[in-house]
């Protein structure tokens, strides 16, 4: 009796993280892109990763969904260890959505087909159901009237919002954003960030690599700072900006916040 109560108590105090990364390392030839990274993400948490270019930010999130295969380390998603077999990778990626810097829409498919392709082909959703869901998602990213267009007919900001809808169509438990606004005209950055902010407010767990510091301050639960393949600091936005612990982070902030 006592034991079970204890067990319940410990389970409540340490809820299982959505994502748990331990000892992740990745080398490209002689270059150490990631050095022994530990990271965990709670369900519904919004983590923003920033740092200088070449610090390993993109490599880290690309390793999380195994677009790069790490040299060592473990990744657990919802308590399940992700294996190396092709089937494991496919199942992992179906639960983790990804949005890329260059949008990477399928140019030969309409907006609607871009969104429905994966649910229809991979989850065997029928056409009507997939399209119904796609239109809902398009409404969410404010593009309901663009469903028949092709990617080349859309602006960068619109394409990126379609890419977000496409990833959401698989009902991911975690969304990864790899510098989603870096390839956009300044005017279009906002519309994409607004969609992302809303997504986070609705409880989506997400990891965002970005240089948008204003967005980081407003939308993050925690901000991680990476340099030379390591996470030097993970802090709440307040501590991160106003009370940075690391000298390297201080220098980084001084450099980017000055102008």
């Amino acid at each position, binding site marked *: 009796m006592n034991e079970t109560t204890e067990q319940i108590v410990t389970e409540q105090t340490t809820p299982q993280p959505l994502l748990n990364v331990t000892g992740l390392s990745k080398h490209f030839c002689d270059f150490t892109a990631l050095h022994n990274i530990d990271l965990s993400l709670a369900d519904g948490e919004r983590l923003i990763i920033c740092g200088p270019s070449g610090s390993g930010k993109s490599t880290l999130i690309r390793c999380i969904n195994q677009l790069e295969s790490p040299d060592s380390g473990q990744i657990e998603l919802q308590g399940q260890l992700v294996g190396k077999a092709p089937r494991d990778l496919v199942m992992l990626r179906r639960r983790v959505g990804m949005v890329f810097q*260059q949008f990477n829409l399928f140019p030969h498919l309409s907006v609607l087909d871009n969104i429905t392709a994966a649910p229809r082909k991979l989850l065997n959703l029928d056409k009507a159901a997939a399209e119904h869901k796609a239109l809902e998602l398009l409404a969410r990213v404010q593009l309901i009237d663009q469903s028949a267009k092709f990617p080349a007919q859309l602006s960068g900001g619109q394409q990126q919002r379609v890419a977000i809808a496409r990833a959401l169509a698989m009902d991911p438990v975690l969304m990864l954003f790899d510098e989603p606004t870096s390839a956009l005209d300044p005017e279009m950055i906002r519309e994409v960030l607004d969609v992302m902010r809303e997504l986070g407010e609705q409880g989506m767990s997400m990891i965002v690599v970005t240089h948008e510091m204003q967005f980081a301050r407003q939308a993050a639960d925690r901000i991680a700072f990476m340099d030379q393949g390591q996470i030097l600091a993970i802090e709440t936005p307040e501590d991160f900006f106003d009370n940075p612990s690391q000298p390297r982070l201080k220098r980084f902030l001084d450099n980017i916040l000055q102008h």
Partner: protein
Amino acid sequence: MSFDWLSFWEFLPRMLQAALVTIQVSVLAVGFSCLLAPPLTIIRLIAPWPARVVVGVFVEIVRGIPPLVIIAFVYFGLPAIGLMFDGFWTGVVALTIVGVAYAVEIMRSAIESLGRGQREAALALGFPVWRTYLELLFLQALKRTLPPLTNELANVIKASALLSVISVHEITQVGNALIFETFVVAEIMVQMTILYLIIVGALSTLSRKLESRLV
């Protein structure tokens, strides 16, 4: 010397018969090339490395040697390992080898020209690698491959003229033989030219129709 219509009509039936042989060899070789190239391209791109290397080496070797050598290899070389073909089937096999090698290279470069972005997007959505290639990249690349592929298959048809050296009764062999028998040169040359133009032209027309359909 004037153009002799009498000899022109006299030799036309034999030349048409020869054209039929050229057409048969070409249709079979082009057909087999088109059937074999897609799966070999997929193997070349994503199969486990031994298979990938085998296809890669095959493509490089065939592209590196003249079609005439391949014809000689099939006709004189393969019997040594028990594979014996008559002239006609030597032509089909040799030209298929040539056609397939170039077609694989054309399809591979077309798929790779699509860039890694789309491939990564499909993988990130949870498409297995082979379905990414088959269902998303390959069809898209197909349209880009048609013009260069048609060019190359036209070359394969024209290479069928080389089968004259192993006495396949195709256009070039029959034409040459007639010229040496009869010393009627211009009329037969004109027939040979027209027949090749019609056959290669038919391929180009077919490809253009296909291309406009794929839009």
